[in-house]
């Protein structure tokens, strides 16, 4: 079974430029998460999707960040314009709503490391 796939793995951009990250969750997983991981910190939730609906985006800085999950499968996280402080790893995770309600397990991708110069 394929895991959570993220791209690109690494991205270097100049400040004020736009950037987008893509995530393909595990097949059949209804719930998709975007987490932000700053250097030396634990992951922090940015947004959670149930199918195509964003059910928790309270931590997403909406002035420059946006996300979408069309058709309830793949998801894209966008930053426009990027700032120096956005340099971090952006992690995507997915879970099966019914199955993982018992296991509590999130399945993470390898992350997209963003460097803003």
């Amino acid at each position, binding site marked *: 079974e394929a895991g959570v796939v993220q791209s690109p793995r690494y991205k270097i951009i100049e400040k004020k430029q736009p950037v987008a990250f893509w995530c393909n969750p595990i097949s059949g997983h209804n719930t998709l998460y975007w987490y932000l991981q700053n250097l030396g910190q634990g992951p922090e939730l940015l947004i959670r999707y149930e199918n195509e609906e964003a059910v928790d985006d309270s931590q997403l800085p909406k002035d420059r960040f946006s996300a979408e999950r069309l058709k309830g499968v793949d998801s894209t996280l966008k930053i426009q314009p990027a700032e120096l402080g956005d340099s971090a790893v952006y992690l995507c995770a997915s879970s099966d709503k019914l199955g993982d309600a018992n296991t509590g397990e*999130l399945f993470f991708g390898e992350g997209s490391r963003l460097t803003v110069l």
Partner: protein
Amino acid sequence: AQSVTQLDSQVPVFEEAPVELRCNYSSSVSVYLFWYVQYPNQGLQLLLKYLSGSTLVKGINGFEAEFNKSQTSFHLRKPSVHISDTAEYFCAVSDTWDTGFQKLVFGTGTRLLVSP
């Protein structure tokens, strides 16, 4: 809101020695606890979890953790570590069981450094 404290940012240990990584959480009526491991340049992987029942939880790769309600702790232990255990370890907590523990709160992580 729940919070997690991992007091040790880095734990150096020699190969085959025992190790304990500490985790304390803020108190709640009900709590669900997790340990995730992150190897270099990889995503997080679940090591073990406490949902209910026995307070001693066994996970993958020989790790185990003990839930201590009175001390609000969930320390991770391994009796004999290997070089391959070198990684970042994150403790996480959720106080909700609505639809799959979505509200996971992670600690800042502990880097385990195993040397020969």
